[in-house]
């Protein structure tokens, strides 16, 4: 595949359209010859980031868009997910996966896994936020793949 290519998807803040982005991620992962498990990791990370953008960034306001850009270069696949919210201040990504314990069973039925799963599924990620919105950037390096 030719390098330095971009794919852009814009969706309204409706959770059903997260599935469209996830399907796009799967197709791009396949086009890049990522192994099956790596594609599943990509799908999960993108799903969590887009869901965050819809629910927390755009507050489920359907007229607000989530922009997803898949950018491919020789070294990596970078996915940038941008919402149109008012920002979240400083965000520190969890250093470890959130695990279910006896004590947190009830609490976790309300969620709280998303960000830690993103971090676990990709090689590198970062969050940039301002009063014009939040961008989550995911990177999966093509190490070990034939260029």
């Amino acid at each position, binding site marked *: 595949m030719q390098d330095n290519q971009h794919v852009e998807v814009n969706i309204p803040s409706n959770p059903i359209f*997260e599935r469209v982005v996830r399907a796009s991620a799967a197709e791009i992962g396949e086009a890049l010859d990522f192994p099956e498990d790596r594609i599943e990791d990509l799908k999960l990370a993108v799903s969590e980031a887009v869901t965050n953008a819809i629910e927390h960034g755009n507050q489920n306001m359907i007229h607000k868009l989530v922009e997803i850009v898949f950018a491919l270069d020789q070294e990596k696949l970078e996915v940038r997910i941008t919402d149109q919210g008012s920002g979240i201040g400083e965000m520190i990504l969890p250093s470890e996966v959130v695990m279910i314990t006896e004590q947190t069973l009830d609490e976790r039925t309300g969620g709280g*896994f*998303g960000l830690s799963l993103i971090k676990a599924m990709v090689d590198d990620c970062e969050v940039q936020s301002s009063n014009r919105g939040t961008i989550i950037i995911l990177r999966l390096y093509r190490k070990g793949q034939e260029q």
Partner: protein
Amino acid sequence: MSDMVNREKFGDVVVLHIRTNSVDAVSAAAIEAACNEMQPITVLNFAEVSFINSAGISVLLKFVVKARKAGYKLFAMNLSPHHQKIFKMVEMSRFMPTIEERDLSSYRQS
């Protein structure tokens, strides 16, 4: 019972066959409704499920909570290798261990 979950009951066992390929925010409410179908031994069959995200994990945890309150046993069946990895990562597998189809056959015959 929603179209997204089919119920197969024999004795104290119920197998809840999840009929959607995505256990996510969109399908969560319909899947959660099947909590009311739980029996002393409840098996969630993921054979048709190709994707589970954190919203899906959260709804599955509602089955865990309900099973523990009722003293029921809860198992997962036909999880994909990726989902087994995720379940292990978040320790869901501690609360919803996997069971093989063949392990159910003795219950089906009794």
